[in-house]
């Protein structure tokens, strides 16, 4: 932790301890989501801290104190003297606005469907901030019907069925045990156990149609399946494609550029490589970046993009 985070932690921990006569180090660690040793270090620091006091020499009555035997022998925290602090600190303006904008971003979740409750939560965050929250906002969206069905299927322990169009363009009916909902900016994904493929798969919500909550019980739940941290898993079958891209736009392809990819820059254009599972995704991606990115090779990849774009352009000539 950085010094500012450590200070915030100390200022947050003290009121939590004041509210509790006695609490174990492990309980505090679990609540704050940190390692027990971090709690012990913080308690040791708090126990010798205080105010200069009337004598300006930090006399014992001017310091926090704890029941040391309980702490050292039983791993229990008991505050026996407190100074200066009574209550939790306010949020900073930026902290409050980060939470408010985060809530707005999540407005399509069924959990956020009660708009009056969200409005009251937002106003509490504003009132609990030390200054007006910064004007950072995310457009409000309606509760997403598919997300609501996913939630319903998880809470009833049954499979979700839907029609899914893969990025290759194949349409199939899938039955899935939903495991986790993820998002990156405007794109939402469901990760789940696919009964058709008998493996964990990632589905884009906007490629799903006709979702239905079935009566078929699930065979996998989130507790049994370890999901990889990254949404897009590289595979040994991936195709590597060399591209030229305007330097300013390189970030747009960051998800596709493998670690350690060769990279050279010349006249504001970057030459590097991207990894794709097939050319169907590549041609769509490249066609949405006209004049910005070009495939250098292999020739099949260039041809796939050229055909796709030419077929699109041809529709305007008939």
């Amino acid at each position, binding site marked *: 932790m950085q010094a500012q985070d450590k200070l915030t932690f100390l200022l947050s921990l003290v009121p939590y301890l004041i509210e509790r006569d006695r609490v174990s180090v492990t309980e505090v660690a679990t609540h704050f989501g940190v390692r027990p040793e971090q709690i012990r270090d913080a308690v040791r620091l708090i126990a010798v*801290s205080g*105010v200069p006091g009337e004598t300006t020499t930090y006399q014992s009555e001017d310091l926090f104190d704890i029941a040391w035997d309980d702490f050292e022998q039983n791993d229990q925290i008991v505050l026996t003297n407190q100074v200066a602090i009574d209550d939790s600190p306010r949020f900073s303006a930026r902290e409050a606005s980060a939470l408010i904008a985060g809530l707005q971003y999540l407005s399509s979740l069924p959990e956020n469907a009660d708009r009056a409750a969200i409005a009251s939560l937002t106003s509490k965050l504003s009132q609990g901030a030390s200054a007006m929250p910064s004007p950072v906002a995310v457009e409000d969206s309606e509760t997403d019907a598919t997300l609501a069905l996913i939630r319903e299927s998880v809470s009833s322990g049954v499979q979700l069925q839907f029609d899914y169009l893969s990025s290759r363009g194949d349409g199939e009916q899938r039955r899935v045990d939903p495991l986790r909902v993820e998002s990156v900016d405007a794109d939402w994904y469901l990760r789940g156990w696919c009964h058709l493929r008998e493996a964990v798969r990632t589905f884009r919500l906007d490629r799903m149609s006709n979702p239905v909550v079935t009566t078929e019980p699930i065979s996998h739940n989130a507790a049994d399946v370890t999901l990889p941290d990254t949404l897009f898993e590289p595979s040994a079958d991936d195709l590597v494609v060399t591209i030229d891209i305007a330097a300013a736009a390189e970030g747009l392809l960051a998800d596709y550029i493998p670690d350690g990819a060769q990279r050279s820059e010349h006249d504001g254009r970057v030459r590097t490589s991207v990894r794709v599972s097939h050319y169907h995704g590549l041609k769509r991606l490249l066609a949405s970046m006209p004049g910005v990115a070009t495939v250098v090779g292999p020739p099949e990849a260039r041809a796939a993009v*050229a055909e796709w774009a030419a077929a699109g352009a041809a529709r305007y000539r008939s």
Partner: protein
Amino acid sequence: MNLVPHDSPAQRVPVEERLFSLVLALLATENGLTKTEILSTVQGYRQAFKRSGDNANLERKFERDKDDIRELGVPLETVQAPGDPGNNQNLRYRIPRGAYELPTDISFSAEETTLLNLAAMVWREGSLSAESRRALLKLRSLGVTADEPVIGYAPRLRVRDAAFEPLSAALDRGAYVRFAYLKPGEAEARVRTVAPLALVQHQGRWHVYAEERDTGVPKTFLLRRIIGAVVATGETFEAPEGDASARALRELEEVWNGNTAVVEVEPGSDAATRLNKRRGTAVAASADADHHLLELHYSDANIFADELAGFGPEVLVHSPDSLRDAVRSRLETTAADHG
């Protein structure tokens, strides 16, 4: 057992201990402490304080500490000495308890705590990640345990635009900024000097709502069209009354509603599925069994043309003509570049 704080100057006091001691000392004082009182008595400063000598280093450290503490939302204030205004040596520092503490009537239920945990998770990679991490610590301070969620969520807002960070800092400080902005259709970027009023995300893209300094006219700029660095000019402004972010979103929404396109989609294609799911999409009045026509809204014709071009032959734009031409020429460019 009671430990006395280390007195030996040789012993280094960790930064967080110095900051913590400063906050405690300033919370405990009614009338405030002068800088000399702080430097000579507060843990972490007093070890390095020279009674008769130059304390310039220590004073600089104190200045930085004040900034760091204020950034956390701690209302560290300065009070002028009553009989001696303007004399910096007699300025007093304190943290008024009422402005520091979370008001006692504010509490969060387990359900609300769950939602706030998710809201903070949104920024875990983003530029507000430090802020949301600290907000969570303060939330935990209240001792409420979150509900176990029905399904795991891993939401993520990645702000890819380099301009976001400097603009958000300028927003908080009320600082004028200067940046080069490339308007579509213009050959060269033009430098703008603006007072940023709000940062808003609409249709997945970040915009800054800002008043141009020379004209005083509020305008919306797309962050991805800002070229190069955003530089603070050094001048500041007083933020106007009212909810600038709500106004910005309302204006973007009006633009979005005002722009309508009619496109034909290939049945069963990726375009048909995804464009159907796009917010505000309707089946066009002119559609029939052979022609799957959708009516779509968009905010920026150039960006929307890029998006539609990605669908290749799955989409045929019917109207407006400008969008039709834009998509067609994009597809021709891509075909030529790969021919």
